[in-house]
């Protein structure tokens, strides 16, 4: 099964990543590794208050600090550049919005908000200068929690809004109220997820310099180079092509590197002001400010005596901090629209409120709200099973749509394909779920209770959001040189996942050329087609598919050329292992390079070769995007075309004296459609699972009641480590998607929600044996002890 550096590859082979030798020897270049003589370094002075009026800023003594070249305040920013454009504006959905200049003029709305920036010959000098800046603040009342923020008399985060809610709506199908009335049973509960982020190990990094020609060259590790380019051009009032955004190797992104941060234009402004390259690297403490996923759920389920679930009514409140221009808040909407997930529940009423507070703004986080829907749904299913005394597996099986109904409309989603029961049963079998469930009760001791829990996750992918530059299509150019070698230029980018290797596999196979003859270029707005970069597991769905389409256009030219050259019908031409041949005449043959050279050098009077350039550009847009545009009238259909899914079983041991949760076993089965590179897909699945497990067990961006971030380092954030995890046993089932060219559904995001849900159910299976229920994450010892103590009262 192992194939390393094969000459000939096909989709489906576990080819190792092409840049692996550079990465593993330390020779790959990330943004901070680019060195330009005379580069200045930027540092940012941040607000020490969660909410305050700025009464004065005095930079006089700061300017005399050695090495300082420029100091910029909100007034300088206001005079020079426009506000940071929204990644996706709440106004697109009819919500409240605000402008977010890179630096504020008169008011700060969260602790950690940039207030003054300095550029100097070294970072230390820039920081020394900022230490000499005098800012006078008048503290204002602030809110940090949802209950505080939505009170009638709450201080407003944005003075021009009527309340601290950016957006709220209800997504309904059927008649949830009536169905709840008619249900044999009803159950309700709550669950809260903490603020936790993705914490890529490479922090954000920007390096800007303006050329004498007025062009801005901008190295950064954004997930969307073209949208970053558009934003910079808009803010600085220059034509979009006058900005060149380059993303070299990226050290993980996961949503943290969506655009919309204030430091993005600040670096470019500093470079312009100083006439020199300026670099800014986010510190870990700065990175820790970025929030995500702080959701509070309240839900009710109606069900019949046989386990059929007939209705869901749910509400989710997100605490998105001070909104900002980056890409976090829509996670709330996605959370609500993902319900009822994989379950055939005809009556659903899901409300959401995007609540703002004086915490730092969110950015996107892998899972993107789909994980919080999984938590709600999987808790409900367990409640149904418990109330009815049914097997939790049976309740799920009772409510899955059967495989023969796909493609299948369910809760505003046209589910592409799947066999949910097979995937669940495989996970149940692999983990020995039923035996473990019995054994957990027997193994219980005075100090330890054991639990096992299932998490099933539906992961809508390939988001196509109208009203913003967040679309579900992408474009690739495939070019064959006279040598027969191939260059692929694609609008999708790699955050470190290695999708360029997967795209090269597809292209090498489509054209029948050697794997090493294919070069994939990404992440340079001067060379690649306009595209939307990396999000929503889209790389192979769209980048791979558009490259395949372009290959097929190219192939038409190559077939015509070979047919003309040999004077044989086009249908007889085949391409294999770098050679062109003719079915039925083994004497005819040449290399693809010879054919390409012939096309460029010998005029061939056939229609397909006028013009003869061996280059094609194709845009791929999957089927299944026939949804209604979301807007002020509400959201009816989700903007996702594909629906991977996965089943997870977690096993835990809970120490009832210390509250410590130890994960002792983990099994999961995934269906993301056709798999182009099984080794990469498995790695993505593991990574997503670990990101869910981290949030379930320990990771948290904790705030104090004073509105200050407490987890400023990894020591307090508690990222998951190798010793926190058991062997992750995973398997795959493939039901190709009928709505994408390659049959792929998207890999990378699926797994976060299933992991969170499985741990939630496993912990509750354990602590339920002593009468307790855990209703909040993370399952750190204090939260578990609190749940146990509550049960003892």
């Amino acid at each position, binding site marked *: 099964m*192992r194939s*390393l550096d094969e000459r000939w590859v096909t989709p489906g082979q576990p080819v*190792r*990543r092409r840049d*692996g*030798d*550079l*990465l*593993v*020897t*330390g*020779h*790959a*270049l*990330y943004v*901070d*590794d680019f*060195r330009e003589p005379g580069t200045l370094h930027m540092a940012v002075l941040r607000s020490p208050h969660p909410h305050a009026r700025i009464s004065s800023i005095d930079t006089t003594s700061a300017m005399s600090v*050695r*090495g300082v070249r420029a100091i910029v305040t909100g007034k300088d920013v206001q005079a020079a550049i426009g506000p940071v454009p929204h990644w996706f504006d709440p106004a697109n959905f009819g919500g409240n919005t605000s402008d977010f200049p890179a630096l504020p003029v008169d008011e700060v709305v969260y602790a950690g908000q940039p207030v003054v920036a300095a550029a100097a*010959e*070294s970072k230390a000098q820039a920081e020394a200068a900022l230490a000499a800046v005098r800012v006078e603040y008048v503290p204002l009342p602030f809110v940090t929690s949802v209950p505080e923020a939505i009170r009638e008399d709450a201080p407003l985060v944005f003075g021009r809004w009527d309340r601290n809610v950016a957006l709220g709506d209800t997504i309904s199908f059927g008649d949830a109220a009536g169905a709840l009335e008619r249900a044999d049973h009803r159950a309700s509960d709550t669950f809260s997820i903490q603020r936790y982020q*993705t*914490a*890529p*190990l*490479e922090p954000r990094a920007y390096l800007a310099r303006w050329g004498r020609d007025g062009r801005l060259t901008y190295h950064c590790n954004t997930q969307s180079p073209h949208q970053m380019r558009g934003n910079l051009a808009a803010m600085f009032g220059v034509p979009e092509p006058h900005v060149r955004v380059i993303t070299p*190797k*990226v*050290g*993980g992104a*996961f949503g943290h590197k969506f655009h919309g941060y204030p430091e993005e234009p600040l670096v470019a402004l500093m470079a312009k002001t100083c006439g020199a390259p300026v670099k800014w*690297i986010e*510190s*870990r403490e700065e990175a820790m400010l970025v929030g995500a996923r702080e959701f509070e759920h309240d839900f009710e389920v109606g069900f019949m005596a046989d386990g059929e679930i007939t209705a869901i009514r749910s509400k989710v409140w997100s605490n998105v901090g001070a909104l900002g221009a980056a890409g976090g808040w829509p996670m709330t909407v996605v959370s609500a629209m993902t319900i009822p997930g994989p379950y055939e529940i005809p009556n659903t009423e899901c409300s959401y409120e995007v609540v703002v507070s004086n915490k730092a703004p969110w950015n996107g986080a892998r899972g993107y709200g789909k994980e919080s829907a999984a938590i709600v749904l999987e808790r409900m299913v367990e409640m149904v099973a418990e109330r009815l005394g049914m097997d939790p597996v049976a309740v799920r099986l009772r409510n899955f749509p059967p495989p023969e109904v796909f493609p299948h409309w369910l809760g505003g989603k046209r589910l592409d394909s799947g066999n949910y029961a097979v995937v669940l049963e495989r996970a149940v079998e692999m983990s020995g779920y039923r035996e473990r469930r019995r054994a957990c009760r027997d193994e219980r001791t005075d100090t330890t209770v054991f639990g096992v829990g299932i998490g099933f996750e539906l992961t809508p992918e390939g988001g196509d959001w109208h009203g913003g530059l967040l679309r579900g299509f992408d474009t690739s150019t495939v070019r064959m040189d006279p040598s027969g070698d191939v260059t692929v230029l694609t609008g999708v980018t790699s*955050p*470190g*996942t290695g999708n360029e290797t997967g795209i090269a596999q597809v292209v090498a196979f489509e054209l029948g050329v050697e794997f090493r003859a294919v070069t994939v270029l990404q992440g340079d707005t001067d060379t690649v087609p306009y595209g939307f970069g990396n999000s929503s597991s889209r790389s192979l769905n769209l980048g791979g598919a558009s490259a395949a389409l372009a290959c097929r256009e190219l192939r038409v030219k190559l077939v015509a050329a070979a047919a003309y050259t040999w004077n044989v019908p086009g249908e007889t031409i085949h391409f294999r292992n770098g050679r062109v041949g003719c079915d039925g005449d083994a004497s005819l043959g040449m290399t693809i390079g010879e054919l390409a050279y012939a096309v460029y050098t010998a005029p061939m009077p056939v229609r397909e070769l006028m013009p003869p350039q061996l280059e094609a550009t194709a845009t791929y847009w999957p089927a299944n995007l026939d949804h209604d545009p979301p807007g002020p009238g509400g959201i009816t259909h989700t903007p996702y075309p594909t629906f991977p899914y996965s089943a997870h079983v977690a096993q835990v041991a809970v120490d009832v004296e210390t509250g410590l949760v130890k994960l002792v076993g983990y099994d999961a089965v995934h269906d993301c459609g056709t798999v182009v590179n099984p*080794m*990469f897909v*498995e*790695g*993505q699945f*593991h*990574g*997503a*699972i*670990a*990101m869910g*497990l981290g949030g379930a067990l320990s990771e948290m961006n904790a705030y104090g009641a004073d509105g200050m971030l407490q987890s400023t*380092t*990894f*020591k307090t954030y508690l*990222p998951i*480590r*190798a*010793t926190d*995890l058991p*062997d*992750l046993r995973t398997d795959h089932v493939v039901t190709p998607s009928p709505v994408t060219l390659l049959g792929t559904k998207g890999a990378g995001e699926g797994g976060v929600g299933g992991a969170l849900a499985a741990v939630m159910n496993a912990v509750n299976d354990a602590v339920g044996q002593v009468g307790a229920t855990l209703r909040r994450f993370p399952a750190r010892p204090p939260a578990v002890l609190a749940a146990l103590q509550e049960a003892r009262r």
Partner: protein
Amino acid sequence: MTHVDPAPHRTVSCTVNGKDVQVRCRDGALLVEMIRDTLDLTGTHIGCLNGDCGVCTVRVDGQVTKSCLYLAARAEGAEVTTIEGVAEEGTLHEVQQALWNGEGFQCGFCVPGQVFCAMDLLESNTTPSDGQIRHAISGNLCRCTGYQKIVEAIHDASTRLDPTEKTATH
């Protein structure tokens, strides 16, 4: 216009990846700063400057060391190996080979810590258990792999390093 940094400086003489170097740096400079900024060996990364993540890992006189917690001045006379110095004459170490073959990294940012800790483990234990491997790399964060394929790759490297002592580890 170049300012002379008035902070006290010194010259550190040491061996980096087998080459004798004399590096002028601030007295307070961290080893990671000397490696990255003065020697331009950018394979040693910065992820937290706090000893938490391990992406700045090097070896100092054989000892696995987080170079953000180590003053450059302390490396006087020492033999320092960075990730660039692991593949001798361009041949990947078995650990590097196994990590690459087995998707033991994705974005690659955490590679220095995983490689040095795995090499260190395998030098003293040719048949490590899962638990021993997890313990050995527990000072290194990885946000991409969930550690699973790193653990598998280190097992793979262990069998390749010592073909006479193959063990069933799963």
